[in-house]
C-alpha cells in the first residue's frame, strides 16, 4: 500500500520538478486523448509544442506567443498575490472586461481628438475600472464577511452582460452600419496600443507584464508587504499576531489583481482586439488561474507558465486548422495540466512511502 508521510521541510527539488512532471503527464494523457479522437498523438503534441516555436511558419507564430502570453502573465501575477494570502479572486475575467470597457470608454470619449495624454489616461481608466470591479468583493468581504469567491465569480456574469449592453448600446460604433461593437481603436492613433517594435507582438501590455513580474518578485522577497502576504497564507493567526491587518491585505490583494486584470483588458482592447464587442473576452481570466498555479504562485514561474500556456493556445489553433483537432480538446488539455499539477504537488511537502499504512 502507498501512504504519505509529511516531510520535515518542503522539498526544494520537487518544487521545481513538479511543474515539469505535470507537463509531461499532460503530454502523455493528452496524447492518449488525441489518439482516442482519432488523431496522431505524436503529431498533435508536436504541432502544439514545437511548431509555433520552430515550425515552418514560426516567424508568424512567435510574436503571437507574446500577444497571448502578455495578458495571461499580467492577470496571473495579480491573482497569485491574493492566492498566496488565501484570498481567492476568481473573477479576473470580469475585471478584465471592465478594464477593457474603462480603457475604451476613455478613448471613445476623446474621439476623434488626438493627443499624447490619451493613451496614459486609458491605462489609468482600465486599471481603475478593473480595480473598482474587484473592490466590490473586497469591500463586501471586509465589511460583511461575504465569500469573495462567489461574489467575484457572480460579477463575471454581470460583467459579460454589461459588455453586451455596451457593445450594443452606449459604445456602439455610430458608423458601424448597425453591427454590434465599438469603433476600432487600431484606427485611432492616439488610442492604439501598437507593437513597440513592429511585428514582434511586443506591445505595451507585454511590457507591463514583464514589469509586473519584476515588481511581484521584489514585493514577495524583499518587502514587508510581500512577507505579510506570504505569512497570511501560511499561518493567518501568526499574521494577525505579527500585526497584519487582514482587511487591508484583502483590499490590497483584490485591488492589485483587479487593476492588473483591468490593465490586461485595456491593452487587449486597444491593441490585438481593437474594439469592444460581445465576444471580446476569451477566457484569459480563467486560464490565468491555471497559469498562476502552474507557476507555483511564483513570479518567475508564472512568467514561464504564461509562455507555456500561450504556446498551447497557439499550437492548439494550429492543430485545429491543420489537424482538425477540436477547440474543446485544447481546453481540456489545459484543464488536465492543472489537474496533474495539483496531483503531483503533494510530493513537495509529503514523501511517498510503500508499505503498511497506519489506520487511516
Amino acid at each position, binding site marked *: 500500500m502507498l501512504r504519505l508521510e509529511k516531510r520535515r521541510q518542503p522539498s526544494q527539488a520537487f518544487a521545481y520538478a513538479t511543474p515539469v512532471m505535470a507537463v509531461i503527464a499532460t503530454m502523455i494523457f493528452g496524447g492518449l486523448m488525441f489518439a482516442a479522437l482519432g488523431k496522431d498523438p505524436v503529431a498533435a503534441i508536436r504541432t502544439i509544442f514545437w511548431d509555433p516555436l520552430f515550425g515552418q511558419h514560426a516567424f508568424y507564430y512567435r510574436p503571437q506567443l507574446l500577444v497571448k502570453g502578455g495578458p495571461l502573465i499580467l492577470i496571473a501575477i495579480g491573482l497569485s498575490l491574493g492566492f498566496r494570502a488565501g484570498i481567492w479572486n476568481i473573477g479576473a475575467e470580469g475585471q478584465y472586461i471592465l478594464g477593457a470597457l474603462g480603457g475604451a470608454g476613455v478613448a471613445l470619449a476623446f474621439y476623434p481628438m488626438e493627443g499624447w495624454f490619451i493613451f496614459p489616461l486609458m491605462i489609468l481608466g482600465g486599471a481603475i475600472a478593473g480595480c473598482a470591479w474587484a473592490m466590490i468583493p473586497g469591500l*463586501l468581504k471586509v465589511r460583511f464577511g461575504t465569500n469573495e469567491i462567489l461574489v467575484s465569480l457572480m*460579477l463575471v456574469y*454581470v460583467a459579460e*452582460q454589461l459588455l453586451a449592453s455596451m457593445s450594443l448600446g452606449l459604445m456602439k460604433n455610430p458608423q458601424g452600419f448597425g453591427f454590434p461593437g465599438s469603433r476600432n481603436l487600431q484606427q485611432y492613433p492616439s488610442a492604439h496600443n501598437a507593437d513597440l517594435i513592429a511585428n514582434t507582438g511586443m506591445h505595451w501590455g507585454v511590457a507591463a507584464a514583464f514589469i509586473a513580474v519584476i515588481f511581484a518578485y521584489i514585493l514577495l522577497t524583499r518587502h514587508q508587504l510581500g512577507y505579510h502576504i506570504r505569512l497570511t497564507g501560511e499561518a493567518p493567526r501568526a499574521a494577525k499576531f505579527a500585526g497584519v491587518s487582514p482587511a487591508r491585505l484583502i483590499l490590497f490583494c483584490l485591488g492589485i489583481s483587479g487593476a492588473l486584470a483591468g490593465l490586461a483588458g485595456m491593452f487587449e482592447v486597444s491593441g490585438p482586439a481593437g474594439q469592444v464587442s460581445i465576444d471580446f473576452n476569451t477566457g484569459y481570466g480563467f486560464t490565468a488561474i491555471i497559469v498562476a498555479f502552474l507557476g507555483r504562485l511564483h513570479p518567475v514561474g508564472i512568467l514561464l507558465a504564461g509562455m507555456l500556456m500561450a504556446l498551447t493556445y497557439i499550437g492548439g489553433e494550429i492543430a485545429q486548422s491543420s489537424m482538425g483537432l477540436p*477547440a474543446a480538446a*485544447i481546453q481540456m488539455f489545459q484543464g*488536465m495540466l492543472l489537474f496533474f499539477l495539483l496531483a*503531483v504537488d503533494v510530493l513537495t511537502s509529503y514523501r511517498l512511502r510503500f508499505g503498511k499504512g497506519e489506520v487511516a
Partner: protein
Amino acid sequence: MDLSAINPVLLIASLMVAATAVMIAAIGELIVERAGVLNLGVEGMMITGAICGFAVAVQTGSPTAGFVAATIGGAALSLLFAFLTQFALANQVASGLALTLFGLGLSSLLGQGYQGIKPPATPRLDIPVLTDLPVVGRILFGHDLMVYVGLALVAAVWAFLKYSRAGLILRAVGENHDAAHALGYKVVRIRIMAIAFGGACAGLGGAYISLIRVPQWTEGMTAGIGWIALALVVFASWKPWRVLLGAYLFGGVTVLQLNLQAAGIAIPVEYLSMSPYIITIVVLVIMSADKSRAPASLGRIFHATS
C-alpha cells in the same frame, strides 16, 4: 409593456421548474460541505452531467437513461476531485476550480455533434382530477417527475442529517475530522462518498437543464447555475430546508425577469439578465452575517498522522 400577460399560476409553476436544477445541485453540495469539503467544481460537474444526460438520452431515446447517465457522469468527475483533495491533499479551492475548467472543456468535447438536436421529451405528471384542479392542480400536480425528485431529495437529506446515525457521523466528520478520526471513523472514506453524492446530484441537476428546462445542448449552457448552487448553500446556512427556500427565490427571480423581458419592460435585456447574479450577491451579503453555521472543518485538509 403589458404586465397582465404574466400569469401568476404559470409563474409559480415555472419557478418550480426553474428552481429544480439549482436545488438538486445545491442539496448535493450541502452534503459535501457538511462533511467538511468545499467542492467549487459544481459548475463543471453540472455541465458534464448536462451533456452526459443529453447524449445518452438522445442515443437511447430514454430520458430516464439520460438522467442515470448524468448521475454517473457527475459522480465520476467528482471522484477526480476526491482523488486530488483526499489522496493528493491538494488545496480544495484550486482543485474545485480545476474541476470546473476541466468539466467545461470535457463537456464541449463530448457535446460535439449534439448541437441543435432535440432530446426525447420527459413526460409530465398527469393525474386525472388532481392535475385538472384549478390553480393548485397546475402548481402541485402538473410537473415532470424530476421536480418531485428534487423535493424528495431535499426531504431525504434533511431526514438523513437529522435522524440517521450515518448523518450524525457525516456531520461529526465535517465539524472536527481529527476527533472523528480519533474515534475510529474513516474520514477519507466518508468524505469520498459525500463528494460522489454531491457529484451525482450536480450531474442530475445539469441534465435537468439540458433535458427539460431548455431543452437542448449548447456549450456552457449551465451559465453559472453551479456557482449559484454554491451560493445557495451559504444562503441556506447549511440547512436543507433553506436550500428549498433559496432555490425557489432564485427560480422566482429568474422566471420573473424572463417574464419581464417577454412583456417588453423598458429595462434593457442585459440588465434583466444580470439580475439573478446581482440578487445572489445581495442575498450572500445579507446571509454572511450568520457565519456560525459553517462546518468547522470546511475546506481544511485532513491527513492522518498517527
